[in-house]
């Protein structure tokens, strides 16, 4: 008849294995080198200035028409190849698609005069031509993610190259709805705040300021990612996923000044894209000229791009074959979980000339 300790209920039972694993993982996060990103085999086909066109060969080619990823000018594109088994590109190459990715690179001070129109005319157009020539196909599928979707849509409306399909995910077309503080959007549109002098002085927006911009719109104080890590550090898989996501989020690239000016003034302030007032070279960009098969993907839990921003593309495009779906995913989780590969395959398999 042993007497119960009076302190029995006071000191909680800890799962010591779990705690040991937790702190072992935390120590690893602090001391180990960063995880290896970009494991899917690829070869460089073309390089211009800082941009590189990568070719990811299919494991076993099953579709004739290749996929061409147009990534955003913010962040680096390795989110599409973030981890084995959850990589979007790996998934697509395993399913038999030839994948091309245009990595815009990190602009330097000499690129301060590069606008979105320059990116499209001199980089994207040439890259698409090269990809078509390299693959030996007659047509190509463009896939745009976020701002890359905007760029892909603009290009698709003025392209002379044979674009059969256009897939855009979480794409901002209508810049009127805004997720951030509304008074700021109002201030920018009414001219209360103006970034012209700022852009002229800096030339290119440094990466830390780009990160600051995203934080200012979303969450100025952000430490819950660390508490989340601490909470689930016993799960090694979660820790690996967290490290990769964290690395990508903090890995911002500088943003060319002229492109930023066009983004802030033409796209955001005056919403010229849906009005059809943007000029690329000597061509007027009219989204009604998009004849390619269209597939628009929206995330229901997207906290950066609202669904209302993507929907107008469905009304404007003149494609005969257009579809719109909403997926239970956030802005980045589409690519992070590899869900995007399955969504693309579902739609593109019948439209990519299976061999």
């Amino acid at each position: 008849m042993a007497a119960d300790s009076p302190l029995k209920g006071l000191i909680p039972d800890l799962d010591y294995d779990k705690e040991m694993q937790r702190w072992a993982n935390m120590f690893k996060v602090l001391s180990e080198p960063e995880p290896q990103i970009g494991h899917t085999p690829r070869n460089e086909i073309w390089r211009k200035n800082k941009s590189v066109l990568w070719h990811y060969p299919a494991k076993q080619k099953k579709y004739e028409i290749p996929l061409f990823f147009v990534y955003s000018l913010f962040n680096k594109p390795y989110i599409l190849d973030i981890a084995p088994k959850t990589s979007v590109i790996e998934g697509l190459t395993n399913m038999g698609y030839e994948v091309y990715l245009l990595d815009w690179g990190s602009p330097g001070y000499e690129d301060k005069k590069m606008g979105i129109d320059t990116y499209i005319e001199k980089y994207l157009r040439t890259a698409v031509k090269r990809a078509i020539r390299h693959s030996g196909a007659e047509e190509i599928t463009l896939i745009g993610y976020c701002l890359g979707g905007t760029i892909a849509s603009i290009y698709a409306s003025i392209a002379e190259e044979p674009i059969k399909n256009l897939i855009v995910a979480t794409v901002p077309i209508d810049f009127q709805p805004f997720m951030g503080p509304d008074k700021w959007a109002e201030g920018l549109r009414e001219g209360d705040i103006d970034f012209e002098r700022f852009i002229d002085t800096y030339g290119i927006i440094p990466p830390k300021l780009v990160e600051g911009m995203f934080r200012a719109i979303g969450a100025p104080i952000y430490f819950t990612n660390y508490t989340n890590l601490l909470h689930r550090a016993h799960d090694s898989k979660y820790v690996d996923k967290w490290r990769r996501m964290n690395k990508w989020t903090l890995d911002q690239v500088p943003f060319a000044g002229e492109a930023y000016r066009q983004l802030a003034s033409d796209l955001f302030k005056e919403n010229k894209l849906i009005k059809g007032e943007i000029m690329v070279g000597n061509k007027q960009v009219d989204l009604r000229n998009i004849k390619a098969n269209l597939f628009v993907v929206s995330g229901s839990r997207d906290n950066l791009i609202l669904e209302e921003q993507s929907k107008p593309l469905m009304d404007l495009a003149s494609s005969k074959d257009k579809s719109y779906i909403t997926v239970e995913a956030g802005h980045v989780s589409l690519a992070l979980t590899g869900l995007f590969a399955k969504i693309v395959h579902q739609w593109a398999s019948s439209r990519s000339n299976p061999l």
Partner: protein
Amino acid sequence: MSDKKNYDPYESLNKFSLVWEKQINDFIFLITNNKDFVKMSDRGTDLHSRYLETFKKNQEALASVLNLPTKNDVTNVANLTLQAEEKMETLEEQIWDLQDSVKSQNKEIESVVEVSKEIIKLTKQLKTELVKTKKELADTKGLHAELQELKFELLKLNDFKQEFETIKELIKEEKSSEPVLTGTASGN
């Protein structure tokens, strides 16, 4: 704190930090989401830009005196490289166009060569047939001449036959008239 599941001290920390973060951010937005703050940021950004511009100008001036390269100098050099790269790319595309046109011309030439090969074959065939036909024609002519001769001979024979028939008739007539003369002589 039940005995059934073990205590996770960080779960509550996580929950609290989520709530704290949201509260702090909401508070920040409350303070900053107004026109006055926006206008103030505009002034602040403008001031910062002006200061930075002046600083840069002075730095350029100083760098030229101290003979130090600045960002602008590096940019100029980089731009030269970019120009050269663009020119090479244009040249590469032109070479590709030439290659493509040469390939298509080669294909055309090949098809023309094939067609002309067939024409030569046909011509040869026609030639042999012509020689054959000429030979046959010569044979036919010879046969025709012989036939003509035969016809002539036949005609001659026919004439001869007719003459012979006439002579036969004449002889018959003479034979029939002779016995009348003989009958009369014996009666005396």
